[in-house]
């Protein structure tokens, strides 16, 4: 059976034209996807968790799902300062349930931006954002700037499908001027009309100089010394920016993780705001995980905040510097953790992972992650977007419906979280 228009649950591009061929509940082939997407679909069962598990005498042993849920509820009930983390790669319905759980137990809840695009969201909260849909960009953009991002490797179809080489109604590759600003010549830089090499950590300076130049101030002669960028390249760039009919800046972790972090993004958004006095310009963060934007929206509606939210005082408080998962772990504050659809042991600084390895951890994940290896409770789930449907938000804030293409013997994340909440409420009453 051929299933068409399946959104790919991997990166923030959420390409929704994947064709999946399924026979006897098995994915036989995948069309239109990039290499990562094909691996995601075809190998979704590789290294999968086969049964709910509990750690007994140092080893993870198979148990029933009821027993695993009971233990998870027990751990969370006994914790004084629990942490819930992950959820950027699952459906919005699960994100919503997780927030409900956080409120119930006074937990800190955080999602992946705290290690990637948090600074983008923080900047957006202070200066706003001039945004556009990817459809609009494909159809209209005649100038595309990739700043500190490398979509050819991290979002492989993004360049051809939505931005650089996409064929739109009024624009296509031949009408589009593409610039990559990065500290190294990435594969995206190679496909651009112009590659501007910037010295590492000098983004803030360069953006400030461009902003001043756009407003008519001269570019300093020693700009190359300061930023690594030639004066003539910069003159050319600012002219092109002002003369573009429809420009867009896509930026990535080259900007958000380098020195200056949210101040870099703040400045980049302000640059785009300035440019709108001349022409139409937008700016979009290249979100890596497919549903970061979903959690930003859903948690935003429910609590008012997008990530790093703390419920210890029974009302939501937001402070990434204090309540990000990394901070909570490095300060050794949380005494239990529920990890959903992510793998902090693989992606957090060791200092943070070390504390995680010393406290009771519950992992909900279809795959046997590195975090599962250090967990007390491991609960397998149906993979969102492959074995479970749900909603996800593309990087430009467009919600798309994820499809279920094969069945799983396990429930989806939202159902597991719902059952943990029910069991917790029962246990709280028993007290």
């Amino acid at each position, binding site marked *: 059976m051929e299933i068409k228009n399946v959104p790919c649950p*991997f990166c923030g591009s959420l390409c929704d034209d994947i064709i999946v061929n399924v026979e006897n509940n098995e994915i036989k082939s995948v069309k239109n996807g990039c*290499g*990562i997407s094909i*691996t*995601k679909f075809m*190998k979704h069962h*590789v*290294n999968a968790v086969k049964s709910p598990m509990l750690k007994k005498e140092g080893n993870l042993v198979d148990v029933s799902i009821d027993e695993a849920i009971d233990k998870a509820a027990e751990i969370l009930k006994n914790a004084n300062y629990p942490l819930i983390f992950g959820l950027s790669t699952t459906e919005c319905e699960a994100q919503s349930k997780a927030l409900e759980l956080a409120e119930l137990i006074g937990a800190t809840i955080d999602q992946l931006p*705290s*290690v990637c695009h*948090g600074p983008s969201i*923080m900047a957006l909260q202070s200066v706003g954002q001039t945004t556009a849909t990817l459809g609009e960009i494909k159809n209209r953009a005649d100038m595309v700037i990739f700043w500190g991002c*490398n979509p050819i*490797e*991290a979002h*492989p179809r993004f360049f051809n499908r939505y931005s650089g080489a996409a064929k739109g109604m009024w624009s296509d590759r031949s009408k589009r001027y593409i610039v990559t600003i990065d*500290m*190294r*010549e990435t594969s995206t830089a190679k496909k651009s009309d112009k590659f501007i*090499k910037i*010295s*590492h*950590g000098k983004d803030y300076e360069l953006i400030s100089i461009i902003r001043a130049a756009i407003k008519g101030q001269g570019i300093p002669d020693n700009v190359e010394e300061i930023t690594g960028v030639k004066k003539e390249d910069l003159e050319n760039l600012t002219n092109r920016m002002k003369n573009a009919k429809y420009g867009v800046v896509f930026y990535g*972790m080259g900007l*958000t*993780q*380098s*020195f200056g*972090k*949210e101040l870099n993004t703040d400045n980049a958004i302000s640059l785009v705001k300035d440019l709108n006095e001349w022409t139409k310009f937008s700016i979009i963060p290249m979100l*890596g995980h497919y549903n970061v934007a979903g959690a930003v929206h859903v948690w935003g509606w429910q609590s008012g905040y997008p990530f*790093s939210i703390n419920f210890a005082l029974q009302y939501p408080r937001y402070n*990434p*510097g*204090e*309540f*990000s998962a*990394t*901070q909570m*772990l*490095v300060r050794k504050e949380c005494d239990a953790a529920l990890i959903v659809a992510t793998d902090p*042991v*693989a*992606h*957090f*600084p*060791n*200092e*943070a*992972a*070390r504390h*995680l*390895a*010393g406290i009771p951890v519950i992992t909900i994940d279809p*795959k*046997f*992650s*590195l975090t599962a*290896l*250090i967990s007390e409770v491991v609960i397998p789930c149906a993979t969102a977007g492959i074995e479970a449907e749900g909603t996800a938000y593309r990087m430009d804030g467009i919600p798309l419906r994820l499809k279920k293409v094969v069945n799983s013997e396990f429930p989806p994340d939202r159902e597991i979280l719902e059952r943990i909440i029910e069991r917790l409420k029962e246990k709280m009453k028993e007290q």
Partner: protein
Amino acid sequence: MKLITARTLKQGMTMEESKLSQSYQDACAIAFLNENDMAKFNLKEGDLLKAKTSYGEVVVKCGKVVIDEGNLLIPMGPWANILIGGNTGGTGMPDFKGIEVEILKTDENILNVKEIIQKLK
């Protein structure tokens, strides 16, 4: 040198398969540097090098890439994480790019994922 951690295509693809696989280790337990830096540290592609920051040290393979002198690029993953600290400067996000790192040639072995996790405990 300055440490830069980043996502790579290989890291993304092998991660989706299994983080316990050899291919994930091949994709992530590697540090890329500029040709001149390689000569400076007497390194060839495929040699083993030890990278050291104030947070920890790790042995990875050496790879060549076009990058400014003085920069060391390691794909994000358990190996890079050993070198990164938990300080976030009030942003909630650790410094994944731009930490001072020293490197030297070594004949010690690369730890596999399981060994790294053992060491966490």
